[in-house]
């Protein structure tokens, strides 16, 4: 231990005995900054496990797209680019409102924080609403993998520009839709969890929490929300965009 560390430690000791530290500083940390650093490090470690979790799904998508390329191209082109782009914009704006929430908490602006959290909840719900419309379309088109799946749209495409697939090849479109529902479904589950937490944060913020100097909870929830945004930033091009001009 060098002399500076000793001095800092002693000062922390003195501060502790005088009860001079803020109420939210836990006893096993020496300073608020150290506590903040440890908490955000922990949050990032959790996000690393999330990268690997979604990473496995992306890996599966990469391999199966390579394997059943024609079926994946046809299936991908049945998704609506308009709804997908709208949803991407909605989610990006919600990330902005969440970042503004973090800023307002740091500025001790309670009204701003409440507004930002409410806007984030609203945009999150809009995203899930649009996703529900998309899922419902898949249901009416019989594009949900399983017993009610129909290869009709792929064997006899309505748009003449689309390539008609052989029935056995068309069956592989089910794998695309399986991965589509697994990836967007897991993403949507993260959104549902995020929105639930946002309601709790909003309730506590209305009681005056997070705007009195202790912002770690809002900071770390912000990290989670932005991570979910990043997952969508990759899902959107991979599922909706990259198959418009297939190689033949």
């Amino acid at each position, binding site marked *: 231990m060098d002399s500076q560390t000793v*001095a800092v430690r002693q000062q922390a000791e003195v501060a502790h005995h005088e009860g001079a530290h803020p109420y939210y500083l836990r006893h096993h940390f020496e*300073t608020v900054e150290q506590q903040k650093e440890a908490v955000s490090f922990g949050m990032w470690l959790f996000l690393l496990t999330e990268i690997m979790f979604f990473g496995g799904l992306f890996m599966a998508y990469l391999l199966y797209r390579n394997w059943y390329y024609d079926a994946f191209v046809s299936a991908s082109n049945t998704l609506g680019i308009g709804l997908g782009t709208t949803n991407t914009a909605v989610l990006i704006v919600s990330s902005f409102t969440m970042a503004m929430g973090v800023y307002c908490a740091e500025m001790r602006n309670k009204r701003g924080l409440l507004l930002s959290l409410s806007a984030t909840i609203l945009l999150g719900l809009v995203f899930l609403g649009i996703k529900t419309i998309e899922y419902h379309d898949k249901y009416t088109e019989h594009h949900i993998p399983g017993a009610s799946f129909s290869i009709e749209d792929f064997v006899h495409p309505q748009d003449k520009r689309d390539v008609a697939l052989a029935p056995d090849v068309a069956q592989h479109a089910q794998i695309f839709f399986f991965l589509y529902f697994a990836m967007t479904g897991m993403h949507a589950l993260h959104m549902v969890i995020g929105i639930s937490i946002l309601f709790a944060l909003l309730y506590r913020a209305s009681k005056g929490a997070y705007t009195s100097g202790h912002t770690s909870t809002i900071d770390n929830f912000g990290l989670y929300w932005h991570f979910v945004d990043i997952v969508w930033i990759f899902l959107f091009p991979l599922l909706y965009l990259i198959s418009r001009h297939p190689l033949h």
Partner: protein
Amino acid sequence: MSHPTLEDAHAEPHIVGPKVYGLILLALLCLTALTTGIAFVNLGVFSPIVAIAIAVIKMTLVILFFMHVKYSSRLVMLTVAAGFFTFLVLITMTLSDYISRAWGLW
């Protein structure tokens, strides 16, 4: 020489303001419009590459500014880098297995 104080031990946390957030939001929305627009242009084999490149730029903006990594400690930067490195190991090792299974059989 004065004794170091508790405040000296750590740098003052950097607060990112609405101006930066607004600019990043604008950039992200422009890149979204760009990637959707480019999807309708026939780039052949480059179409997924360009789409993923734009997604990587968007992700970098979100991580650096919305997630404050640009202003974070080295520990956090290293943690984020470790995450992506591990993800790339997942992709590389799986693909090298996939590609080499039928090696020499074509």
